[in-house]
């Protein structure tokens, strides 16, 4: 009985020494943390950030979006708002869209729907990816913007079309 007790005590003390050995060994191993401002993570190829519009192959300033509303309707959080105008264009010259611009009713009724605004309220987004999945023309994709930070909610209300144009200029 007593020898058993002492044996247990010795095992117990030994287990503590083993614990110290483990932490001691780890003490000597190199650090594994990423020191954020100096180092950044690199595995962002598949990161799903906020969505962004994909430009047409031929025009980096225009989105592929056909304004079908799939993303807007399927968004569980209701964070996407698409605004578009229907314009009639007599000649096929791609024109910069201007909000509120209302073309005069032309005799030749070739109507073209044009995206004026693609609003994303990123505050509400739950990053499910349903919009990207169901976009029929692959006009949406995820950004790789992992270090996104701001001081107010307003900074996360994105106008994706504007962002697309900014990207196009670069």
């Amino acid at each position: 009985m007593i020898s058993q007790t002492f044996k247990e005590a010795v095992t117990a003390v030994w287990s503590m020494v083993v614990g110290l050995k483990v932490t001691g060994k780890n003490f000597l191993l190199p650090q594994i943390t990423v020191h954020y401002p100096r180092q950044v993570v690199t595995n962002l190829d598949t990161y799903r950030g906020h969505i962004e519009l994909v430009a047409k192959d031929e025009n980096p300033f225009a989105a592929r979006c056909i304004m079908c509303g799939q993303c807007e309707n399927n968004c569980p959080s209701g964070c996407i708002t698409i605004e578009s105008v229907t314009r009639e264009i007599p000649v096929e010259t791609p024109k910069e869209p201007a909000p509120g611009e209302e073309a005069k009713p032309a005799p030749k009724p070739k109507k073209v729907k044009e995206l004026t605004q693609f609003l994303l309220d990123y505050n509400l987004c739950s990053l499910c990816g349903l919009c990207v999945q169901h976009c029929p023309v692959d006009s949406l994709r995820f950004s790789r913007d992992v270090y996104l930070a701001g001081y107010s909610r307003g900074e996360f209300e994105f106008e994706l079309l504007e962002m697309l144009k900014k990207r196009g200029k670069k």
Partner: protein
Amino acid sequence: MPDMNALLAGIPAELTRLILALVALMVFIGLNGLALVWVERKVAGHVQRRPGPYEVGPFGLIQPIVDAVKLVAKQLATPAGADKFLYWLAPLLSFLPIFLLFIPIPFSKNLVGLDTNLGILLILAFAGLNVLALCLAGWGQNNKWGLLGAGRAVAQSVAYEIPLLLAVLAVSFQTGSLSLTEITAKQGAWPWQWNIVVQPLAFFLYFICAVAETNRAPFDLPEAESELTAGFHTEYSGMGFGLFFLAEYANMIVVCSVATVLFLGGWQGPIEPGWWWFLIKMYALLVVIIWFRWTYPRVRFDQLLNLNWKWLLPLSMVNLLATAFAVKLFA
């Protein structure tokens, strides 16, 4: 200024020395407390494969000072319903006796505040005040967790003081003195001349009890944050908390200093004896205590007391008896 000189001459040299020692000790405790905070965080960091503090100053050395400034600058908030007097008395009572604990410790051959032949007794006596501080803190803050923490602190400290005392007593038996200077002097420079070789069990017991006395993990039950949120200092913020914090580190330094003197030959060391040996040994022990904290889970309260009454106390008794016999037989 002849008047002044006369006045100074009237002061006994012993008192001057004591006051000087107290001032020096204040600086020593302050600096070592800060250094220890840094060491603790660095050790914790590296054990967990993180860098620890590294932003403020080289290797984060300025970090503890910045933290101290932050703590000092904070508002002193008293919780509603607290006993204001006791509430603020507690951190002071926890911190102030610490200075007295260092006075009889010989840091070097002549570097000792007051060489009294009852040095170890003085330390043990004043170390007991810390319990009172924790008790008052727990009671005064009108917080249920605090009260539980205080209860634990008292039971724990009272229990662990006994084997601690007995372990120390064994060394005193062996050297025949209670004076720390003398105990140091009786040990040699090399490790095999230290008391730890003669009294390994006493050292083991002393060290466990010391960890428990200073409420360090795995015996940090009075503050056990996963059970009692923060235990006895739940409501303390700012420098009230800061003083408890500093007192904990200062207490660690005290117990490690005493261990150094009693078991590890104090300031004696190979090649060139001096205070640096003392500091090296002391810090080695401190690092071990810190290492404990970042390795072990916390024991349960009844297990803590069981360990004390069923293991440490009998063992220290046996050790003491054996020492007494050995001293009687061989000395």
